[in-house]
């Protein structure tokens, strides 16, 4: 017998998750579309649904021990108006979806949905976000790239819930988020690009690149980034061809209804090139 539940507290939600499997619903902006049925009928769920969106105890943005900590049911629109939220994250949120969706959408939903085109995911990868998972047994913290294992696949256990996202506070002298889609608002990315750099005394101290929708998970290669640490800005710009060649084999997009692999790959590498040469 189907029994959907709106828990009154996180504790109640965790206990329920420990008893039996549920589909966890946060803002529903992905799930309600994926499970959409005919007009005038509810979406189709084979599993019981646990409604956590209104758990106020998971709605917060705070600074703690060198991290910005974001509660999992915080709508992304709240982050836009927060002084604490990292600028790069705000940049991505500012151009994702539309106000109506941003009032419901959550970062935790992007993680749970684990789409390679999730708008905030490249930012979470670039910023080394840590995902805090909670169950009745306690909490565990995992880096974002260990949580998501493939398209729509993640390592979360049936009894776990995303409690919060911890983003280390870091400094960039320049950063960009670029999204290419069929329409400016409300489009799922054909490809997205994130670049962030910290240059001090003309030395590259930090260099981070992430791509969305060009591989099974968000593409970030720390071993490539580290090759270019310590260069001057001019040296880095001079090596733009090497940088593009380094990323080329890892940019392996697919053909789908939104775009094709040739277009995606060309655009992704052009965005990378443009980021470097316009530093």
């Amino acid at each position, binding site marked *: 017998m189907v029994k*959907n*539940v*709106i828990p009154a507290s996180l504790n109640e939600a965790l206990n329920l998750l420990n008893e039996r499997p549920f589909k966890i*619903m946060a*803002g*529903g*902006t992905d799930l*309600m*579309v994926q499970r*959409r049925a005919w*007009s*005038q*009928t*509810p*979406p189709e*769920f084979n599993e019981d*649904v646990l*409604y956590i*969106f*209104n758990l106020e105890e998971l709605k917060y943005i705070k600074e703690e021990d060198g991290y910005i900590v974001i509660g999992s049911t915080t709508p992304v*629109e709240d982050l836009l108006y927060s002084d604490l939220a990292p600028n790069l994250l705000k940049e991505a949120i500012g151009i994702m*979806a*539309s*106000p*109506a*969706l941003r*009032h*419901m959408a959550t970062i935790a939903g992007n993680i749970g949905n684990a789409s390679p085109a999730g708008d905030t995911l490249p930012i979470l990868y670039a910023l080394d976000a840590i995902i805090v998972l909670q169950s009745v047994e306690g909490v565990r913290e995992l880096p974002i790239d260990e949580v998501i294992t493939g398209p729509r696949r993640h390592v979360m256990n049936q009894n776990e819930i995303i409690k919060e996202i911890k983003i280390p506070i870091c400094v960039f002298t320049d950063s960009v988020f670029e999204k290419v889609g069929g329409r*400016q*608002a*409300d489009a799922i990315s054909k490809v997205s690009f994130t670049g962030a750099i910290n240059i001090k005394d003309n030395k590259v101290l930090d260099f981070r690149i992430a791509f969305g929708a060009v591989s099974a998970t968000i593409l970030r290669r720390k071993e490539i980034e580290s090759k270019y640490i310590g260069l001057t800005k001019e040296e880095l710009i001079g090596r733009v061809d090497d940088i593009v060649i380094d990323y080329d084999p890892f940019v392996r997009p697919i053909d789908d209804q939104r775009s094709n692999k040739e277009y995606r790959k060309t655009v992704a590498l052009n965005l990378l090139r443009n980021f470097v040469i316009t530093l």
Partner: protein
Amino acid sequence: MAKIKFVLNNKEIEMDENPNLRLLDVLRDKFEFTGVKEGCGEGECGACAVLINNDVVNSCIVPLGNVNGKEIMTIEGFSETKKFEVIKDAYADEGAVQCGICTPGMIIASESLLNKNPKPTDEEIRIGLSGNLCRCTGYNMIVKAVKKASKKGDGLW
């Protein structure tokens, strides 16, 4: 089934319903608020826009379970306010309504924008209404109407 309480157009509601129901269907079929339109049914066109706690949302992708404890306002409830009068007159003056199917959603999105930003620039209006599609006007008259409402309704927002 689950017990769900919310405020709808200033009236307290308590229901024992399937929380998976789309808010859109509940508003149209159970409460007959048919100013809430279904367009795309997947959150891209904004015809089904309503306010939840003063913020615009697309009711076609809001499950009933997510409105527990919230305040919902449809175009019908909003049409009894002074702010609506100002927005309505501005839309009429600027010719911002043609076929009309996007209009309730446009007005709800306009209200949500003005609530957060009483003096939006043209660019901010376009971003504020970016989730609402209109296939008649070409948007320019709608942007002008929101600008006019912001000016005429000075102090209301």
